[in-house]
């Protein structure tokens, strides 16, 4: 008995010796990583879900479908749904209310269209740079057509002899001869194009752009709507839509007199000092009058105390009376009365229309209903008679079906994805939902579309307004590259999205601990880079890229002189993420910057992230050293020839995620 008591006493004493300092250490560890003092001490909250290669990550994983876009059969019975994460085209019977076929297509299918006869479906595979042609009689992939980089929106030509494919990553349009299956033409479009729609008269193809044309901070921003002549297959016009971006999709009224695009009107040039009064983002649509001078009128769908962010798709009923817009950031469909829009436009002077584009109350004149949906409504499709609206609820793995007459839910079609919601999936829903910003004004997606960056520079209003301009950074594949923020002050994502985030950005209640853990889990494990198929599809570098690699890794300049270690590219940008995770002053401080060193950014897929440097002053990679960096403090380049620089840039453009190395 004495022995037992003695052993018990020793164990308790040892336990206290370990527990007390252990708890102290654990508290310090958690406080440091979360930047708050009261996060619960649960190891599993963080460590179970933040390591992408851990066995727990695999256990917690689930194969969701994530429906993106929809096409409807001619008889309205079948719908065809691109399953973005399922790499499949799902065929669902709307009467039975279930999936009846699953067709494996390429990587990250984006859009689907069907031909007039209803015999073939075309599916754009955004991460495999091709289009799958699916026979709708036997649901087999009969052909795979090569496209440009990042195929997204699709349209058939009016004679259905050609397929138009919008290449979102290479910012161009592939025109494929369907008889031969060969690309006949490549046309340059606006920046990061996505949506495509042929006008009802078959004369013009409209292509929307998500990113604005690169411009210096302070210059007016424009995003292009590209118009292509269908018969000549030539560019007819680039229409600059001012102060707008994220123009995801476009639809025409049945008469073709109006084209309506979804869009976001950012306030990146306004100091980010408040969210009230639309100081960060507003959302709406643009109305292009095709007759007349082709002016574009922008109108908001927001209200003074409620915002409807991330408008994605738009469809217009066959009678031309109503437009349905999916607001993917707040889980609503906004219903717009088009006659009211026409009346407003015809009754307004140009000065008034200019006012209305920044007026939150004007939506009351034409928004007639908001239909609640499941998580992250994306693609929309109408039945041929226009009486039924299908909505792809991407993060619900479900299609909702609504009546366009009474705008009530008719049914939902479960696509058969996993029932459980993993921590990472929950985090993805949070990232795509504006519920954690004041009055739902914007979601993480709004500035980080597809978890990347929006190409804009913001006035984050640090100590004073107008100072510390900040180039949005990508969220892709950042788990191994802390710290975060351009000044490297956030050592973890938990801190980045924690209390300070709510104080200076979202301006509402911070994430709960559970939600913070979930969104951190998603950011740290769930966001991958697309393969760099544009510049480095196979890992085999071109000659220019190889030469550029030599330049990148050189230790001696062109005169044979030793380059100081701190001036070598590879010192601060070593593989595999091309960052040494440290902060430096590379002579890029602007007069409006506080005196800080900048965190070395990672460079994978850098070709897809203009503009460059912390304040986005370099529109291209080349400008980093031709307009700036001439003092050799951002790498020794003054001895380089133009060819050397060109090769260096080619090498930089070839950089890609280590996930694809050896694949």
């Amino acid at each position, binding site marked *: 008995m004495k022995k037992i008591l003695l052993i018990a006493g020793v164990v308790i004493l040892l336990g206290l010796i370990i527990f007390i300092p252990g708890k102290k250490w654990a508290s310090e560890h958690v406080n440091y990583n979360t930047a708050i003092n009261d996060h619960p001490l649960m190891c599993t909250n963080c460590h179970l879900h933040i390591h992408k290669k851990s066995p727990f990550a695999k256990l917690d994983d689930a194969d969701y479908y994530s429906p993106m876009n929809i096409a409807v059969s001619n008889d309205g019975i079948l719908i065809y749904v691109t399953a973005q994460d399922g790499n499949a085209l799902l065929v669902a019977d709307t009467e039975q209310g279930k999936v009846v076929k699953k067709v494996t297509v390429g990587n990250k299918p984006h859009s689907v269209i069907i031909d007039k006869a209803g015999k073939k479906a075309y599916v754009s595979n955004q991460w495999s740079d091709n289009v799958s042609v699916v026979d709708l009689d036997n649901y087999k992939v009969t052909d795979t057509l090569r496209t440009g980089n990042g195929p997204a929106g699709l349209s058939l030509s009016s004679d259905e002899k050609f397929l138009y494919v919008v290449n979102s990553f290479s910012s161009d349009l592939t025109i494929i001869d369907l008889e031969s299956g060969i690309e006949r033409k490549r046309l340059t479009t606006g920046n990061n194009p996505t949506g495509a729609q042929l006008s009802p008269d078959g004369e013009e193809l409209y292509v929307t752009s998500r990113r604005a044309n690169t411009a210096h901070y302070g210059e007016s921003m424009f995003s292009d709507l590209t118009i292509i002549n269908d018969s000549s297959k030539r560019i007819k016009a680039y229409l600059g839509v001012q102060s707008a971006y994220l123009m995801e999709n476009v639809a025409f009224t049945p008469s073709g007199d109006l084209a309506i695009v979804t869009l976001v009107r950012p306030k990146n040039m*306004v*100091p980010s000092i408040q969210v009230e*009064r639309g100081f960060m983002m507003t959302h709406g649509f643009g109305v292009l009058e095709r007759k007349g001078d082709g002016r574009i009128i922008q109108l908001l769908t927001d209200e003074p*105390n409620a915002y409807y962010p991330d408008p994605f798709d738009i469809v217009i009923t066959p009678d031309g009376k109503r437009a349905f817009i999916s607001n993917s950031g707040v889980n609503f469909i906004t219903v717009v009365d088009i006659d009211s829009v026409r009346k407003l436009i015809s009754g307004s*002077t140009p000065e008034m229309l200019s006012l209305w584009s920044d007026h939150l*109350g004007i939506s009351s004149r034409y928004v007639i209903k908001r239909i609640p949906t499941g998580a992250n409504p994306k693609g929309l499709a109408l039945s041929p008679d226009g009486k039924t609206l299908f909505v792809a609820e991407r993060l619900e793995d479900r299609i909702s079906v609504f009546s366009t007459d009474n705008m009530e839910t008719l049914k939902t079609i479960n696509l058969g994805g996993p029932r459980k919601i993993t921590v990472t999936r929950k985090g993805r829903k949070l990232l795509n939902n504006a519920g954690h910003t004041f009055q739902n004004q914007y979601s993480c997606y709004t500035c980080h579309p597809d978890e990347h960056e929006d190409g804009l520079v913001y006035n984050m209003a640090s100590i004073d307004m107008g100072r510390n301009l900040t180039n949005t950074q990508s969220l892709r594949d950042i788990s191994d590259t802390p710290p975060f923020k351009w000044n490297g002050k956030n050592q973890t994502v938990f801190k980045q999205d924690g209390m*300070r985030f709510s104080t200076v950005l979202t301006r509402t209640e911070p994430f709960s601990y559970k939600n913070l853990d979930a969104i951190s889990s998603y950011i740290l494990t769930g966001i991958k880079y697309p393969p760099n198929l544009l510049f480095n599809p196979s890992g085999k570098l071109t000659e220019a890229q190889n030469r550029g690699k030599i330049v990148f890794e050189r230790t001696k300049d062109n005169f044979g002189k030793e380059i100081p270690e701190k001036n070598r590219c590879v010192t601060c940008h070593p593989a595999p993420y091309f960052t040494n995770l440290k902060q430096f002053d590379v002579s890029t401080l602007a007069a409006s910057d506080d005196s800080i060193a900048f965190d070395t950014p990672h460079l994978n897929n850098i070709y897809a992230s203009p503009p460059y440097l912390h304040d986005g002053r370099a529109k291209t990679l080349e400008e980093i050293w031709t307009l700036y960096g001439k003092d050799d403090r951002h790498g020794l380049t003054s001895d380089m020839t133009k060819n050397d620089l060109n090769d260096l840039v080619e090498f930089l453009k070839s950089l890609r995620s280590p996930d694809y190395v050896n694949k």
Partner: protein
Amino acid sequence: MSSSLLLVTCRKGSMEGMIIFTRASIKSGIPDYVTGNSWRYLMQSSLAAFDPENPDRMPESLTGNFFSACSPEISSDCKWMLFAGQQKQGDPWQIWGMNLDTRKVTQITSASENSTDPAFLPDGRILFTRSIENDSLKSGHALFTCNANGTNLTRITFNPHVYFASSVLLDGRVIAISKQVFPQIGNPVMMVMRPDGTKSELFYKGNDGVELFSRGRETSDGKIFFVESDNSGGNKKSIVSVNYNRPLHTRINLTSSVPGVFYSVFPLEPGKLLVSYSPSGSDSCALYDFDTEKRTLGKQLFSSSDYSVLEAVVVREHEKPKKLPSEVDTEVKTGLLFCQNITVSGLTSPENNYSMPVAYSIEIIGIDSSLGVVEVKEDGSFYLKLSADMPFKIKTMDSEGNTLNGPGSWIWIRPNERRGCVGCHEDHEMVPANRFALAVRNQPVSIPVHTAGIREKEVELE
């Protein structure tokens, strides 16, 4: 802060589902909307709890030991009640808290000035109105917050307005009836602001001559209900609703066809309100339910011939508003104000082709004197660093110094607050254009000029 404990009754037990109301004399005097007398301060009033499941049972007196007690408010977990009360005749009104299970009462405030209209803030602090004697800001009644035990008293409004009948919206902001009292008495409006007093802005404005009478109550379907008098000079008070999404333009009078006087509203289930109502205005008020869809008065729930039943609240759990972060730092003595374009104005119309004469400068006007004249930039923008917690107005002037617009409403900036305006006296539904204003490309202009010499802590927000 001293506190005293009063054990009112020893009865324990949950009060969930009960209705607590203020009992007041039928003839309680003409309401004074500046001093709050006979309106927010109801002399010899008391609080009682009524059980709607047992309507024949006499209401339980909750504040028998108080000379006056009114303005009840229930916490979101329905365990606590706040109210305003005088223990003895002539005492200043204080804020009190009651544990609804034990009925134990705790004094929260202890000051020589009157306090009333308490409300629970989502961070656990208390919001209330307090009168201020000899106030250099000429405010009369300002909004304050404090901890639940009365410590850490913080004033949050700093303009010459009175503030009464505050409540908290689900988005976490405070909403209160506000009326200018200096240099002249103005029309009442509903103002919203964050619980730290930042980002104050107009929420609702009635027609000229109306009085806003009761706390605004938000329902789960996004409406705010309150009582508003009409401007006919008579005694009629109606229930009005506005939509949270667009409050300035969605006013609906729900009881224009119902004769009599409404005193207060409180949400019941969706589509129903608990209202205090008198058919004639001279008779006592009784409790009724009201159908907001049909706009009809429902059944009478409780009445008394001895007193009016006012300010009823239901003891039940309800959604807790969002807890908003604060940018206020009291070690910082100033705040920043940015206006994008002073020519953007609500005074524009189709008649003047939506444009205003170009303004060249602004004058910042304090309570007693001018605080400075500042030239605006060519694009109409200005950027100021102002002393915190100091009320001011702004007027715009042409190149000759003639007034073009304003002075507008009183504004204040809290320590370390950064505040933005789209224009000057602009349409409240306008958002800023997306452009890089000239004014913020330079340092702010300090107002008054002596603030330029203040050495203060610099706070980095991002």
